[in-house]
């Protein structure tokens, strides 16, 4: 299958570190390019050679299932040589710093490094020290740009637009890089964004990003076109943010009665992995008429292929 490239358009950034660095044109360019890869991924022969001869290193300092496999598949389908490093077993454990690891890998002349790290800004630091392109696969609680892009692609595919939609992002906003990237992207593309979270999980001055904030989920979901649920990140919680999971589910879990406040054709999204029965009712998660969670995963590969191709050019 031939992939057409719009040669006239160029991306404004060297690296993909965050949505906040991108322009509206950049975002639309990536989303448009992704469309072709959706079809490619559904066809029999899924492999092309636009990245043949290129080396992609996936540097994952945090455990990840979908993002890591998605980036790995994306690279392989584009013909790149992909190496995934699980940094749990690496020299970092022996006391090597991120910069030294970066310099070591840089000496092997990779073309792309995909990095996931528990510290905010790790990808920025890396990008200053290596010669190749750096794609951020999630840094601390700061940004997860490809997740926001795949979410946008999913919304655009289903609703045919993003501008003017009312989108609720609900749950653990404080610890969520997905929320931050989505807020930047969706507000940039003209959506109205409602943030729903208990005060303990609401970041300070988040309203300055141009969003509406709600602690009452029913009010926050009112007339929404999209309900985006986030995972409760218990591993990042160092002290008592919540009384219990069951109380959280009662007030902030997505249940049919709360969803009734959204538009009747509202779609449910979740970046995964899900805590069923904590932030989302398991029937809603699997409701094929409402939930687009599996589609998000599918489109994730396409978006990452587009990013690899665009940033590698």
């Amino acid at each position, binding site marked *: 299958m031939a992939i057409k490239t719009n040669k006239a358009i160029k991306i404004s950034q060297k690296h993909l570190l965050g949505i906040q660095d991108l322009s509206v044109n950049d975002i639309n360019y990536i989303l448009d390019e992704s469309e072709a890869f959706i079809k490619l991924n559904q066809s029999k022969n899924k492999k092309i050679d636009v990245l043949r001869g290129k080396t992609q290193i996936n540097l994952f300092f945090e455990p990840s299932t979908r993002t890591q496999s998605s980036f790995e598949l994306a690279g392989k389908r584009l013909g790149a040589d992909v190496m995934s490093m699980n940094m749990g077993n690496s020299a970092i454990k022996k006391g090597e*710093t991120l910069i030294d690891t970066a310099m070591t890998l840089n000496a092997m002349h990779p073309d792309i490094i995909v990095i996931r790290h528990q510290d*905010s800004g790790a990808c920025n630091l890396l990008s200053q020290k290596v010669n190749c392109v750096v794609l951020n696969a999630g840094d601390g609680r*700061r*940004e997860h740009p490809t997740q926001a892009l795949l979410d946008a692609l999913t919304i655009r595919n289903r609703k045919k637009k993003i501008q003017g939609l009312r989108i609720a992002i609900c749950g653990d906003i404080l610890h969520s890089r997905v929320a931050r990237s989505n807020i930047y992207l969706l507000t940039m593309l003209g959506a109205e964004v409602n943030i729903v979270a208990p005060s303990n999980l609401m970041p*300070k001055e988040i309203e300055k990003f141009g969003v509406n904030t709600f602690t009452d989920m029913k009010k926050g979901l009112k007339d929404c076109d999209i309900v985006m649920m986030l995972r409760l990140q218990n591993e990042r919680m160092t*002290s008592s943010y919540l009384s219990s999971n069951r109380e959280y589910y009662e007030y902030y879990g997505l249940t049919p009665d709360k969803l009734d406040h959204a538009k009747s054709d509202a779609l449910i999204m979740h970046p995964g992995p899900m805590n069923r029965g904590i932030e989302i009712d398991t029937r809603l998660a699997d409701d094929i008429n409402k939930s687009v969670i599996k589609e998000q995963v599918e489109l994730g590969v396409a978006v990452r292929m587009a990013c690899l191709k665009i940033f590698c050019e």
Partner: protein
Amino acid sequence: MKKQYFINAKIIDPHNSINENGGLIIGENGNIEAIGKKVNINNLPTREKPTDLKGKYIFPGIVDMKVFVGEPGYEYKENFRTLSNAALSGGVTSVVTMPNTDPIIDNVSIVDFLKRRGRDKSKINIFPCASLTQNTDGTNMTEFGLLAKKGIIAFTDGLKTIQNTRLMSRIMNSAKDLGCLIMQHAEDYDLAQNGMINSGIIATKLGLSSIPDIAERIIIERDLTLLEKTKCRYHISQLSAGRSVDIVKERKQNVKFTCGVSINNLSLNENDIGEFRTFLKLSPPLRREEDREALVQGLKDKTIDVIVSDHKPEDEESKRLTFAQAATGASGIETLLSLSLELFHNGSVKLETIIQALTSNPAKILNINKGNLSIGNDADFCIVDINKPWIVKKENLISKSKNTSIEDKKLQGKVTNTFVKGIELFKI
């Protein structure tokens, strides 16, 4: 030593309320023999060759109340020799060193070592602090009385805060009995937990955990409440928030205590952190511009007594990390005076107030005979070309560590000569 004569200087000595054009005579023993307007070319014997300062300023040697030295334990970051050279280039002739070394300065035997090293390796006056609690672990207090007899002039856990209220109350009782000065780094750990920068839009944007300004306020209010009951010599090391200035101002009307501010918090705000500049990871953190303005106002109206450098040398390896992993603190003793002068040049604070906060005020709080140009005292002073422009460059810094918070900043005003006990130890 030969007698030395200086004429045509502008002299500011807040301790003696001197702010006039005049000269300075240093006696043969390195003491100040005469000072002020009466020292001029018409009153000097013709055989003497006075140095004409041509309108440069003479300030008392700066007393920097908060300095970290790497010795013992972290000599690769800073030792007494490098600290003293860095200090002299900035007009600082007396420093109060923090006890956060390895080992911690918490017992009498290590104080002897420290004083010997300070005396042998340093050309400036070193006043070491001992910790408030053993190993700065916040549980058992140190021997204030015995340590004070060995020459310790103040007690602080430096980087750390006494969290336990009962312990703080007991520390204050002991300090009162023994007449000791205690200095608190005000931060409630439960509120500040894992925090790296100020709470607000910047922290949210960078995705960094944050330290709210109430973490400072709660410790200040707690300590001042205890202080009302037990009136000891109490000093808050550094304020960082506008609200803290309000509280200090209000409470100073009823209870006696003092407080300081770091030159970093007076000159920079959280926006300077930009994209994860680890050299600006400080404790207390840089806060909003409104907070910075309130601190400047607090200095101006003398709510804040002291400006410190909060000089914390860190080697490059401790800073070339992600923001979360990077060490806290910035080097700053060499730029303390020049950066403080920015507040004078931009019309925010009177020159005399700035010099007071750098010399006579800290000396008074510490109860040491430094930071003044009184006749008969050691001639510790600096000569400053107050308009000389210069640019802060990492490679030109004298300190062993180069983690300046103001790399490439253009400053106006530079120390040209520094004297300790009448001996010129620094000269451009």
